[in-house]
Structure formats: structure tokens, C-alpha cells
């Protein structure tokens, strides 16, 4: 197997509207460099946009970390969206289609779960939210 240089871990601070755009552009660029196809790049960029926007809307600030991974030759992009905002008291409720405390569509979290291969959400009320998602290159 040829060894491919994976991009180093990259952390993007999220605290303003413009950071949402920057984060999804960074994610798309890394995904393209890793060899994801255009449809998958779009899915990854969309997921990042949803997670970053939730940080700005509900937690004010946080970060998104991008990590290229290689498991036995299978390559994937892991994305961790973290904040130390108010947290989510009822995760099941937040994960259901249409639930929103922000008078929005309530599709960001459940939709992100649908478009990524792996999805994990944790929250301790009062201490913030961590959402970890991953997408693997299909072969």
C-alpha cells in the first residue's frame, strides 16, 4: 500500500457566523485532499455547517476539530464539535426531527446523523455538548 500523507489534526475556533463558512470550507478541502468524492464532500460540508451553526446559536463559542484517520487502510475523516455552553437536557428530544428551541426546522442534529457514517452526541447539562461524527471513504 502506498503511504499517503494525512493532513495533521486541524482545529477551527467557532464563535462567529463567518467561522461556520470557514469550518465547512476547511472540512471540504481536507475531505477533497483525502480523496472523498464530490457527493461525500458536500455531505461532510453540510454536517459541519449544521454542527458549527448550533455552536454559534446555542453555545456562543466552541471548536471543531478535523482528524484524518486510517484504520487498516480504510481512510476516514473524524470531526469533533465541542462547546462549553448550556448543554442539552434531553438528548433524545434534541435528536428527533422537528424539535427546536431556536424556532428553526429542528433538522440539524437528526439530519447530520443521517448524512454521516458515525454519529455520537454527549452532553452534560451546564457543561456543554460534544458531537463526534465520521465519514469513511467508500471503496
Amino acid at each position: 500500500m502506498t503511504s499517503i500523507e494525512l493532513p495533521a489534526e486541524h482545529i477551527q475556533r467557532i464563535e462567529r457566523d463567518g467561522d461556520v463558512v470557514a469550518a465547512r470550507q476547511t472540512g471540504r478541502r481536507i475531505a477533497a485532499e483525502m480523496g472523498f468524492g464530490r457527493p461525500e464532500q458536500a455531505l461532510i460540508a453540510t454536517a459541519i455547517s449544521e454542527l458549527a451553526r448550533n455552536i454559534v446559536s446555542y453555545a456562543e463559542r466552541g471548536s471543531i476539530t478535523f482528524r484524518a484517520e486510517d484504520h487498516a487502510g480504510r481512510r476516514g475523516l473524524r470531526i469533533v464539535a465541542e462547546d462549553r455552553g448550556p448543554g442539552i437536557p434531553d438528548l433524545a428530544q434534541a435528536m428527533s426531527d422537528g424539535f427546536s428551541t431556536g424556532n428553526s426546522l429542528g433538522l440539524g442534529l437528526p439530519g447530520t446523523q443521517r448524512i454521516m457514517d458515525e454519529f455520537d452526541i454527549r452532553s452534560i447539562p451546564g457543561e456543554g455538548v460534544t458531537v463526534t461524527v465520521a465519514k469513511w471513504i467508500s471503496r
Partner: protein
Amino acid sequence: MAVRVPILRQGRTLIASFQDDLSDSDILSLQGRVLEDVIRHRATGVIFDVSALDVLDSFGTRTLSDIAAAVQLRGARMAIVGIQPEVAFSMVLLGLTLSDVPTALDLETGLALLARAVP
């Protein structure tokens, strides 16, 4: 700040062409400008050409629906044209349908669509 979305006029139709990745505030500022232009030019139709956009997330979609509803209230019609195939695919998986806004493949079809709708 430079205008990120120029609004052109063709007869009584306005055409807003999205240039590239827009921030939320860019989209929100567009909302006001489109409505002002609809009133100023007595426009009967508005077309949003989103073929240059490579992401349309829940915020963007909701804002486009809101603009369409406001345009409708001003007696004009709005259509969205040029949604990229991979963008459409992501939107469907996310659960975004845009079912209340007419869409067309490209600008030409969109213009024809609006022309048909005008009494």
C-alpha cells in the same frame, strides 16, 4: 463590504445570483435587498440562482423559504434554480425539501416557469 449577491433585472423579473459560499449574515442581508427591489421595480418574479453554492444547509433553506413567502406576499413569485446534484442529495438526506418554493434546473427553465405563472 462588497455585495456578495448581485441582483440583476430582466424586465420585471429579478435575478439574484449567489456567487459562492455565503455566510448567514450575507443571506439575511439579501432578504431585505430582494424585498426592496421587488417593490422599487414592481417586479413580478424573483429567481435565485444557486448553481454556485456547494452547501445549502437548514439555515440557508429556511431563509430561502422565508424570502419566498415574503416575495409572495408582495404579489410576486420566486423560483430557485440550479441546485447542484450533490447539494440536492445532501438536502434530501438532511430532511430539507423546499416544497413550498418552485425550483427549476437552470435559469432559462426558471424564467419560463415564472412567465407561465404571471396572469
